[in-house]
């Protein structure tokens, strides 16, 4: 990972009064796998479309290799996109879909039209079909392919043009769970093999954590946090990030001193420093970082209110003084049993208060929150009518 390739400087996107992107500042390095992660309507697809050239920001600059490209149309950018529903050309077969970009005449330095020779087209297309494991499918009509195969064609069609950057807009959204996992590995492999930059948009945090070099968490048109997957998970900057990435119990606390935080009037050892004395803070405790002990031996004492078997562990909801925590544990504790808990200092993460404080992290309405997390994001997030997809979505 080396030099900077793309930079968004103070990008604002607004439609009338509605601000979709609010002063986005972001840089993307060459050969990086960067993921824009966030819920529906957070601005991630808009950001991608700005980089692709389909939208021009209301204010701010888009720089590519240091050159401002705000007004460069998509067909002149060395960037290619894999679209949400693949957007394969239904009237062309697999080969012709992949060859589409190569067949277009390009202007050379002297402004003359240059065409890629047919032999070269054939070579490059076949090579690319091999990369995406679709050799032997070249004569098939695209409508006769499965979702995963169509996905591969879309990737090959974009990559055959040798872009510097590949943009992927929720490319796995339409696939089932197993296929999605396979394709994640496949994409990562392709990215490493081709040695180009991937900018990946998703609302699926697991996907983001599994594949990315850098994750950009967005919400409400703003970047909430940029960091490696580990950073984002272990050191969320605010309650939104903590909640969006994985499961979190977020509790009001007071920083009594460096390394000491008070929750429910009890002091806990932690590793966080640099807060003012007695500053109110949000405290994140991941469900897997809580150990269940004998009631008497616990730092806190509570009552189990529900238990759900999850395979590897139990999701146990425990009531502490009216505040419900989610604890993931391999120990079975029956409902209504009284338990105690212990938390190691490195299991506690302290965050500054933000406008997200108090909105997340309480498992009082446990089941609903679960459902919410499982919701698959609907079509595009820019309020585009869904009817444009009618009859096109036929796995």
């Amino acid at each position, binding site marked *: 990972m080396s030099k900077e390739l793309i930079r968004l400087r103070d990008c604002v996107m607004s439609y009338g009064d509605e601000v979709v992107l609010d002063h986005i500042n972001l840089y993307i390095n060459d050969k990086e796998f960067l993921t824009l992660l966030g819920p529906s309507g957070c601005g991630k697809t808009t950001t991608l479309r700005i980089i692709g050239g389909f939208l021009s920001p209301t204010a701010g600059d888009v720089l590519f290799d240091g050159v401002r490209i705000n007004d460069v149309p998509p*067909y002149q950018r060395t*960037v290619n996109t894999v679209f949400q529903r693949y*957007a394969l050309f239904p*009237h062309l077969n697999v080969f012709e879909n992949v060859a589409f970009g190569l067949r277009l005449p390009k202007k050379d330095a002297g402004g003359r039209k240059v065409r890629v020779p047919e032999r070269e087209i054939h070579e490059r297309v076949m090579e690319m079909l091999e990369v995406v494991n679709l050799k032997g499918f070249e004569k098939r009509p695209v409508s*006769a392919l499965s979702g995963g195969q169509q996905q591969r064609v879309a990737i090959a069609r974009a990559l055959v043009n040798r872009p510097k950057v590949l943009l992927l807009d929720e490319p796995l959204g339409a696939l089932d769970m197993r296929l999605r996992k396979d394709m994640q590995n496949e994409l990562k492999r392709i990215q490493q093999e081709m040695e180009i930059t991937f900018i990946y948009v998703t609302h699926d945090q697991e996907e983001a954590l599994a594949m990315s070099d850098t994750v950009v968490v967005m919400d409400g048109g703003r970047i909430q946090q940029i960091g490696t997957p580990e950073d984002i998970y272990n050191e969320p900057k605010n309650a939104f990030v903590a909640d969006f990435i994985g499961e979190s119990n977020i509790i009001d606390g007071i920083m009594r001193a460096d390394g000491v935080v008070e929750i429910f009037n009890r002091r806990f050892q932690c590793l966080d420093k640099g807060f003012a004395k007695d500053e109110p803070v949000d405290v994140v405790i991941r469900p897997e970082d809580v150990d269940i002990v004998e009631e008497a031996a616990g730092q806190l004492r509570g009552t189990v209110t529900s238990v759900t078997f999850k395979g590897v562990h139990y999701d146990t909801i425990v009531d502490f003084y009216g505040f419900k925590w989610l604890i993931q544990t391999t120990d079975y504790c029956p409902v209504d049993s009284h338990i105690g808990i212990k938390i190691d200092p490195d299991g506690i993460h302290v965050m500054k208060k933000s406008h997200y404080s108090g909105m997340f992290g309480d498992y009082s309405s446990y089941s609903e929150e679960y459902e919410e997390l499982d919701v698959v994001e609907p079509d595009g997030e820019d309020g585009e009518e869904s009817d444009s997809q009618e009859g*096109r979505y036929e796995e």
Partner: protein
Amino acid sequence: MKHGNRIGSRLFIGLTFLFLYLPIFLLIVFSFNAGESSAVWQGFSLDWYVSLFQNRLIMESLYTTLLVSLLATAISTFAGTFAAIGLYSLGKRRRDALLVVNDIPMMNADIVTGVSLCLFFVAFFQGWGSFAQWFNSVQGAVELPERLTLGFGTMLLAHISFNIPYVILNVAPKLRQMDKNLVDAAQDLGCTWMQAFWKVILPEIKPGIVSGALIAFTMSIDDFVISYFTAGSSTSTLAMRIYSMTKKRITPEVNAVSTLLFLSVLALLVLNNVREVRQERRAERQEIREPSFFEKLSFRFHHPSFKWVRRGVTAAMGCVFIVVVVLLTGAAYSQPVVNVCSLGEYIDEELITIFEDRTGIRVNYQTAESNEALYSLLKSGGADYDVIVTSDYMIAQLIEEDMLEELDYAQIPNFDLIDPRFRNLPYDPENRYTVPYTWGTLGIIYNANMVEEEIDSWSALYGDEYAGNVLLINNSRDALGEALLYLGYSVNTTDEAEIREAFDLIADANARGVYQAKVSDQVFQKMEGGNAAIATYYAGDYLSMLENQADGVDLRYVIPKEGSNWFVDALCVLKDAPHYDEAMEWINFMASTEANLANMDYIWYASPNTEALEQYPAYYEENSEDGEPLDPELYEIMAPPAEVLERCESYVVLPQATRKLYNDLWIELGA
């Protein structure tokens, strides 16, 4: 029970389809009939098709129809496709609203579309006229035409305007089905918008465009009403030609041309449906399969290395289209023309061909229902005829309103052949505007097999003896004239009380159900077929009916004892006629002995040409199939002697107030 139901429902379906298709089936069958009858099969023959293709007027209207349909289809397909794409770039709400707006013209009554387009064009032409006049007066460099008229151009515009919604309707769903990201994807891969349109949008929506074009073409080909109102006086489509041919009676020739029209529209619809079904099947069948021969061929054809072949084929098709258009236009529009309008089917059409061959002047021949209909057509500004044929009283009115142009008699030497009896008549006392065309009498035509005694009085029209079997002539002047004669008044009275008395006589009989219908040229079919007992019409038309009367019908003609009307119909030229010299040539030709003889033989109206009147009996004998001589009694009906004319009165133009009274009363009588 169940079984019975099924038979019942099948029977019902059968009857429904029988009801739908039997008339068309009969039409097709009788187009192959050897005889003239539309009811009795007289053996198979293709004669009517042969005569169809030899009929210059029909072939010409076929050219016009194809030309207007092709051009309108091409233009509206282009415009409609881009309009649909434009619609899809709008927001959903505005797009849906506009799609509803798009539906309205298709659901709208054709007659409303036609009339409104006609009014629009006429209003525009008037505005244009003032503008062009002003423009020409302030500068001399460019001369703008000051007078525009309805014609091929306006009809084409009308066809384009009613075709566009059909194209949009067919293209829009394809656009809706199309993945919006396709265009983005194409641009992302290096296409400009235009390249994306050609390479991605067009192939995707092509089925919609093709079916839109097919439907537009079908709509254009079989349109009658809108064309009728926007074609003006010089242009007729096939449908308009068929309509004018059916005014008197439906000849097997009409069957033949209608059959061809029906079959071509059917073929287009079948083509369109087959295409749709195929596409649906293709969409359903997504499994991998060996492509069919045609698909392989089509794939080959669409392969990039065949680009030049493809471009060649496209270019060739484009050239063919242009050549066809040029040929069609050229064939129709390179000659000098004269636009003629006449009453009913009022000419031996072979004369038109003879005239055209001899002079090279093209004749656009159209017909009007009645004098009054012609008058309102002229007043509406929707017509630009050069020559019209109309009746004496109407001529007087047109002269009064300064709507006629004086004739240049130096260019009409044949005027010398007109019998002095028919010159300087009251409607044109100095004979500056007219050349008489025909003359004759109004009388009662009755079916002797349907009445008790011989009829000799107008009273037969008002009594109850033949209630339900009397046809009232649909023309206020004649109908009220007959009543006035019966009451012993003059046909030219201006006394309101007398006119009202005459009207009450008719209205009363009408209320008692005496009249079967009000008719103009429909009288032919009714009387010839024996569907009515009594009618009033013109002597010449009686002779024509006599020739075509069905078995068991015995038609007689009588000029009632109370007297009747005798009339002269004459050729005249409208003010500012665009083709004045051609009009003079046409009038001179129509006044010739040759034309008058042919016309007498064809329409059975008496000629005002002295030579023709003398020579007609011999001409008849020579031309009749078995050399049979002309029945003098019939000739007397056709060209009655002086003493009969003395019993008759000719119409003179009525003062404005009386004309208005006539008009109001006629409207009061209702349908």
